[in-house]
């Protein structure tokens, strides 16, 4: 009996210690991310005068790898979501004989919700993992140390371009995804229930407000911060070998997607 109690006590204290350790790691993670954001903006503004300028060509390179290269898959997925929502909307509204109102459903849900969320998840899977593996392998190969001893701040060379690249490319991708999704919905709706293109877009524009667009833009910026920082912080945390790098890459995707969904839910609840 005493031995059993001992074992339970041991297990309980171990769990509490694990929770405490997890909490400390989470706080350290947030602290490091906050520091990277601060340093990136500091170097963007003060960098040129202290010999650490954030180079435009590096940011453009990040826009290309993180944004433009994601464009085909984002457009394809957004268009598919637009068609799926149209199918589902028409099917549900037909019960009430109101299938022509499907355009309002799309106008209310795509810019505010689906376009930022789907784009965020796709970019997290693509760019978040790529960032984690790139930064992680740079760390393992000693490239980050090499930059430091060359007098090049790794924040301005790696972190800031990735962060600003995503902050520019993700809102653009979300805008494109919104248009692609609504456009694909329009094609399906015209083909099935015969709403003309002009009437469709007039309905959409009459419903979508500036607040919806601000919501869409705000979420894309928030997701860009999450994807860039989770990828980079997880990459910087890599030490050991290739196996750890693989784990960090996978973990960064899962964490990014989880963080995007959690942040999205929070935004919906609060705004």
């Amino acid at each position, binding site marked *: 009996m005493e031995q059993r109690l001992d074992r339970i006590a041991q297990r309980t204290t171990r769990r509490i210690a694990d929770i405490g350790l997890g909490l400390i790691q989470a706080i350290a993670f947030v602290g490091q991310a906050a520091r990277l954001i601060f340093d990136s903006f500091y170097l963007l503004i003060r960098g040129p005068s202290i*010999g*650490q300028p954030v180079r435009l060509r590096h940011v453009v390179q990040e826009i290309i790898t993180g944004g433009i290269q994601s464009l085909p898959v984002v457009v394809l997925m957004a268009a598919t979501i637009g068609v799926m929502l149209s199918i589902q909307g028409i099917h549900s509204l037909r019960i009430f004989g109101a299938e022509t109102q499907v355009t309002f459903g799309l106008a209310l849900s795509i810019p505010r919700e689906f376009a930022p969320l789907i784009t965020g998840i796709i970019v997290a899977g693509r760019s978040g993992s790529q960032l984690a593996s790139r930064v992680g*392998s740079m760390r393992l190969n000693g*490239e980050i140390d090499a*930059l430091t001893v060359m*007098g090049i701040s790794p924040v301005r060379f790696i972190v800031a371009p990735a962060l600003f690249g995503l902050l520019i490319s993700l809102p653009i991708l979300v805008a494109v995804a919104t248009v692609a999704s609504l456009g694909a919905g329009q094609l399906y709706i015209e083909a099935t229930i015969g709403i003309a293109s002009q009437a469709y877009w007039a309905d959409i524009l009459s419903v979508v407000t500036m607040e919806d667009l601000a919501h869409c833009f705000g979420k894309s910026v928030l997701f860009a911060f999450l994807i860039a920082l989770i990828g980079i912080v997880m990459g910087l945390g890599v030490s050991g070998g290739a196996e750890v790098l693989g784990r960090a890459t996978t973990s960064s995707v899962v964490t990014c997607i989880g963080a995007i969904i959690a942040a999205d839910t929070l935004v919906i609840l609060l705004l």
Partner: protein
Amino acid sequence: MAVSPIIVSDLMGGYNGTPVIHGCNMEIAHGEIVVIMGGSGSGKSTFLRHLIGLKEPMQGDVSLFGESLYGVSENERLKLLKGIGVAFQSGALLSSLTVGQNVALPLVEHSDLDRETIDIIVRMKLDFVGLLGKEDLLPSELSGGMLKRVAVARAIALDPRLTFMDEPSAGLDPVVAAALDELIIKLRDSLGMSVVVVTHELESAFKIADRIVVLDRGYIIFSGTVAEIKASSNQRIQNLINRVAEDEEFDPEAHLRRLVGEA
């Protein structure tokens, strides 16, 4: 009198509060090749990380050309580091850049030179290390010896007065290792550079060193010329240079405690 390229004063450093380096003092003269030697676990790599600004010491300081490396802000430290060159053991070349772009990196980032001039300097540096014509190759296409030589070319791109090299000849065949040794001597003789080399390759150390510093369990136990180290009466130094294995004193009780996990 000119300021020493590097002065290490009372340096103590380590990991997670546990000291690995204990009160080390060292000074290097202009145009001097100093080889830091020591067995595995002697603290060579940690010592080097402190010297090149990658690890804040627990105590003491390192000064480069008369300016404190750790008593300044991060930006000031980065500015100071522009004055040195470091060739890492693995090369640590940026894998996404070509050989030419790697060598050009310090010039692109820290000088106002135009592209054409940078290209000429890159070719000169690659010629110096015997790799002219390899500008467009990626690091993944190079052999171990070539990687190290490109790392040297990058380290000297800005013509620093002080260069650090971590295990330059480790893992290389004798011919390539000898070529690298010649290269280090050439850096001193033709460019007047001070060079700090961390190595455990005896042959290479004896060939290139003006002075040898021996680290043992985090302490500097010897500093002197090749002739002096060979004549040293210190048993640990003799064991190191004559490659004699050391028997640790065997305590059966302590050993037993370690086996059952009590110590």
